């Protein structure tokens, strides 16, 4: 399976099949709910590689994600449109679109025995905009 992440905001951030290792999608209401709760949150958790541009190509977009993770709450740019695609055998298994995503956690790790770093990005849809989330899939991938 392959994954693509696109984040549209003040700048375009694109991470492709080479970078992303895992994608996890989660909808969550409190575990102690006695009935369906309105306290509904939606998160996506992505992990992947931070590639060094060894052949003179452009550096990957993980740096822009790191900068996004530092945008303060009073700046409207902290909310961006994020799209996660899960692709397998030329089929889009899932296309999940977060129109008002914000970054909850962003972690980068580097080690001296590895050639690449790793990142972990947790993003969430703004809670009052949860109904705007689009959850699509099951169609062919137009390459």
């Amino acid at each position, binding site marked *: 399976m392959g994954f693509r992440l696109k984040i549209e905001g003040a700048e375009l951030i694109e991470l492709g099949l080479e970078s992303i290792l895992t994608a996890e999608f989660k909808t969550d209401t409190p575990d102690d709910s006695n009935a369906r709760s309105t306290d509904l949150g939606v998160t996506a958790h992505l992990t992947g590689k931070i590639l060094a541009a060894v052949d003179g190509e452009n550096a990957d977009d993980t740096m822009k994600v790191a900068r996004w993770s530092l945008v303060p709450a009073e700046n409207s740019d*902290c909310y961006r449109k994020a799209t996660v695609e899960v692709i397998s055998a030329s089929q889009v298994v899932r296309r999940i679109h977060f129109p008002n995503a914000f970054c909850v956690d962003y972690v980068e790790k580097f080690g001296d025995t590895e050639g690449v770093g790793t990142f972990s990005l947790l993003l969430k849809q703004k809670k009052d905009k949860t109904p705007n989330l689009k959850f699509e899939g099951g169609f062919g991938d137009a390459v």
Partner: protein
Amino acid sequence: MGFTLKVEGPELIELGLESIRTVQFESDIPIDSNARSKDLGSTVILTGKILTAVDGEDADATRKIGLWSLVPAERADSYRKATVEVIAADQVVRKFYYPNAFVVDYTESYDDTEGVGTFTLVFKQKKDKISTITIEGGYGATTA
């Protein structure tokens, strides 16, 4: 991958490629936030080796980090300018710059079966100065 750390304050602390083993950068808001929160913090965690100067060269700068970690909060030099670089294949993958970094944790451990000690340094940017952090990278390294 290789890493360098530079801490500028009343004294210069430099740790190089031989010393640092891992670098971790984090920025986070509370996990239960319903919207983007003002409560934003950014942390860097470094682990590495404490090298013994066996050939008469200068001792490495880890002792100065130990001293920095003991500076009390009422002194201005508890905040220092910290720069961490991640270098791979002559490319600067990341250059994190924290202009008001303070030490949260500093741990050194030694063992009787090893020739080097290990350290863990956790530093954070002063929370009201988060916007002054810069993250750069993706350019060629100038090898000295």
